């Protein structure tokens, strides 16, 4: 167990990180992600307010749809990345990272400027379980009458899972199909056990409970950013290749001007994915060397259990940020060769 944003969380369960990772890719994995924070925004100006403090376009959402976005600073850097759920035209739910929940809450309150909204930090009102993998839909369907096939990717519905009122969301952080289930926290244990039962936990192809380490390797293979690694208050969305969640023409939002300028000028450094080509494993914070110059740092580096390669993300100067570029990573004093590759590293078969 480790402390993670104030939560006691398992790094891995008895099966171990590699098995948890592989099972999620081939069958299903269950993650207790109740540590995630939730902020409720309700009122006639809910959409206008959230649109002003985030970079993606909340106006594009319909009821029952979710969106990946970021809370941005005036410098175009990232306070947090989050999901916005549109429950109704006057009711949004923001799902934020655990370690940043308090900071986000303060930031959101302090940027509230007269819009008619009621803000509530409801993090303690929800547990969240993520059931991920190709078998996720069949497992969850055993526990609910809600036709899960009808929920499209990045959409959600209210329904009952094992007779427990839930938000059933077709989202995730693994690169697999799957669901995130939100319910009142007193039901967490029961939901957890019922999903494991329904998923034949304990059999060779059954669901496996997965810890933080597998959550990290799965999201890395899928090319997804992790707050505090690829993105933080010192990296802009454009540097982090998150231009797709920067809707510069949606109207004003915090950081829009800087981001528009940066888009016109071009970024000086860029986040890239790399594959280690020598023997060795690149790790977080190790330096990237190109032409004998120390030009950047690894933001996440790890073995990729499904791809059976050692991969990572790093920031490098924009002039070196093209696929095929050879780089070196200083792995505890040894320069290990690597090559910039396309991300995501892993894409699930459709």
């Amino acid at each position, binding site marked *: 167990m480790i402390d993670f944003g104030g939560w006691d969380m398992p*790094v*891995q369960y008895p099966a*171990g*990180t*590699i*098995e948890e*990772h592989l099972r999620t890719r081939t069958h299903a994995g269950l993650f207790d992600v109740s540590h995630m924070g939730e902020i409720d925004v309700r009122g006639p100006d809910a959409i206008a307010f959230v649109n002003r403090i985030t970079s993606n376009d909340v106006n594009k959402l319909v009821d029952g749809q979710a969106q990946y976005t970021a809370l941005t600073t005036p410098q175009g850097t990232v306070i947090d990345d989050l999901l916005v759920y549109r429950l109704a035209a006057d009711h949004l739910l923001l799902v934020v990272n655990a370690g940043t929940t308090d900071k986000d809450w303060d930031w959101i309150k302090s940027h509230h400027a007269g819009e008619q909204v009621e803000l509530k930090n409801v993090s303690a009102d929800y547990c969240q379980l993520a059931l991920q993998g190709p078998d996720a839909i069949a497992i969850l369907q055993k526990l609910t009458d809600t036709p899960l096939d009808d929920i499209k990717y990045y959409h959600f519905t209210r329904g009952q899972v094992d007779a427990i009122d839930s938000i059933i969301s077709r989202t995730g952080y693994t690169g697999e199909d799957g669901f995130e289930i939100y319910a009142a926290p007193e039901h967490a244990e029961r939901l957890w056990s019922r999903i494991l039962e329904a998923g034949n936990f304990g059999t060779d192809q059954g669901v496996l409970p997965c810890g933080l*380490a597998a959550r*990290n*390797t799965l999201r890395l293979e899928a090319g997804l950013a992790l707050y505090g690694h690829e993105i933080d208050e010192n990296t802009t969305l454009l540097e982090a290749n998150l231009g797709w969640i920067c809707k510069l023409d949606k109207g004003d939002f915090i950081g829009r001007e800087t981001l528009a300028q940066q888009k016109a000028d071009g970024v000086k450094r860029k986040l890239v994915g790399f594959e280690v080509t020598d*023997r*060795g*494993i690149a*790790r977080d914070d190790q330096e990237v060397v190109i032409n004998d110059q120390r030009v950047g740092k690894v933001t996440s580096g*790890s*073995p990729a*259990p499904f791809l059976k390669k050692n991969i990572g993300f790093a920031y490098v100067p924009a002039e070196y940020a093209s696929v095929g570029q050879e780089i070196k990573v200083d792995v*505890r004093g040894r320069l290990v060769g690597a090559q910039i590759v396309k991300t995501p590293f892993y894409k699930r078969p459709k």
Partner: protein
Amino acid sequence: MANVPEDLHYSKDHEWVRVEGDQAIIGITDYAQNSLGDVVYVELPKAGEKFAGNEPFGSVESVKAVSEVFTPIAGTITSINESLADEPEKVNSDPYGDGWMIRLKMDSPGEVDSLLTAAEYEDFTKAESE
């Protein structure tokens, strides 16, 4: 319970030593491999390299973490377990056998007497995990 063979010597850094004449075979214990989790990479020195006692001679990596491994006693490397390059998981499956790491010629074979016995090591790991 972790497996702690009677006939080996142990260090507080969780290495084991098997003495064969003036040579010592060294690896990490069952307790160590279990706390590390799946080993995915092992970095070892080259034959001929000399090490003092209690000096890092390589590293063992799991998905999540890197751990250094230390020479319990001083000596010169005579061979390494080359097969770990392709099958690092042997450290998990057979830590006292196929998962051995280095063989060295001891500077002073008497040095092993300063290491822990199996019983002492068992007590040590119990205390550490409490």
